[in-house]
């Protein structure tokens, strides 16, 4: 089981993502100019400020060479997780429905929130049960999710009642594509893998994937894209 973590100019959470993944499998960084996903079983598009967030968050990063390859990987069924800025990139790339707007408060929010697992049938939530509560940090300015007409089964995580930090539609904190192999989340599971920092709940997302791949049921995408 090997995770690949994308590093764009302006990424800042890729090392935490790398260390989080290494608790559950092998992991290596993928530079934004890389096109080689050989022997990668799952891709993480991490948080930060890719390409300075110029124009709109995620708008430029989606055109990077690595994202073309990640798109092919996802089309072949490979599991892809976008976190925060990575979620924004996947939306801009059309790999996930919807868009992320500036927080209703217009402020940067940085706090621990509870999220509720709505869909445990994605490669990243299989270690969870529907209704499980996870304690994860959020830290963003552009996290107000908006997706008119999104299907209920595409909602993967919801902020617990009263904890919506950004005005997101229907308290949505994480979604998946129609096939379920591409997931985007606004909270940061990679910052919540060690009890020392207050919560290790985020590890369950990475554990889900590692377990699924080990059992050979991550979906059709566990084969590397040539």
């Amino acid at each position, binding site marked *: 089981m090997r995770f690949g973590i994308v590093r764009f100019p302006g990424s800042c959470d890729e090392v935490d993502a790398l260390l989080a993944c290494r608790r559950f499998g092998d992991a290596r960084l993928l530079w934004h100019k890389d096109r080689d996903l050989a022997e990668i079983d799952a891709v993480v598009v991490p948080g930060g400020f890719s390409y300075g967030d110029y*124009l709109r968050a995620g*708008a430029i990063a989606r055109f990077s060479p690595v994202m073309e390859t990640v798109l092919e990987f996802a089309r072949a069924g490979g599991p892809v997780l976008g976190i925060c800025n990575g979620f924004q990139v996947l939306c801009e790339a059309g790999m996930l429905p919807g868009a992320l707007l500036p927080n209703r408060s217009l402020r940067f929010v940085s706090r621990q929130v509870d999220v509720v697992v709505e869909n445990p049938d994605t490669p990243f939530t299989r270690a969870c049960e529907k209704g499980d509560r996870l304690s994860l940090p959020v830290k963003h300015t552009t996290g*107000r999710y*908006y997706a008119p007409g999104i299907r209920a089964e595409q909602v993967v995580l919801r902020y617990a009642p009263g904890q919506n930090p950004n005005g997101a539609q229907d308290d949505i904190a994480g979604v998946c594509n129609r096939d379920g192999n591409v997931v985007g989340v606004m909270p940061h599971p990679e910052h919540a893998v060690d009890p020392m920092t207050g919560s290790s709940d985020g590890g369950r997302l990475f554990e889900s994937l590692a377990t699924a791949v080990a059992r050979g049921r991550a979906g059709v995408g566990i084969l590397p894209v040539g």
Partner: protein
Amino acid sequence: MTRVRVLIRPKEGILDPQGQAVEGALPALGFEGVRNVHVGRLIELDVEDASQVPEMCERLLANPLIEDYEVQEAAA
């Protein structure tokens, strides 16, 4: 080259907290009677073929899900 201006604004019906903040601040300065403030972006560009600009808007300059755009060609 043609000078083109692209005006981008939040789509109608989408909450625009920036516009609301500006609308709320103006009365504090004594400017009453202001409604429907929206904050957007202006992109100026010189292009050889202005007919390509709408596609540029659809694919990069704007996000059509959340933003409307308007292309204005500057008078020669």
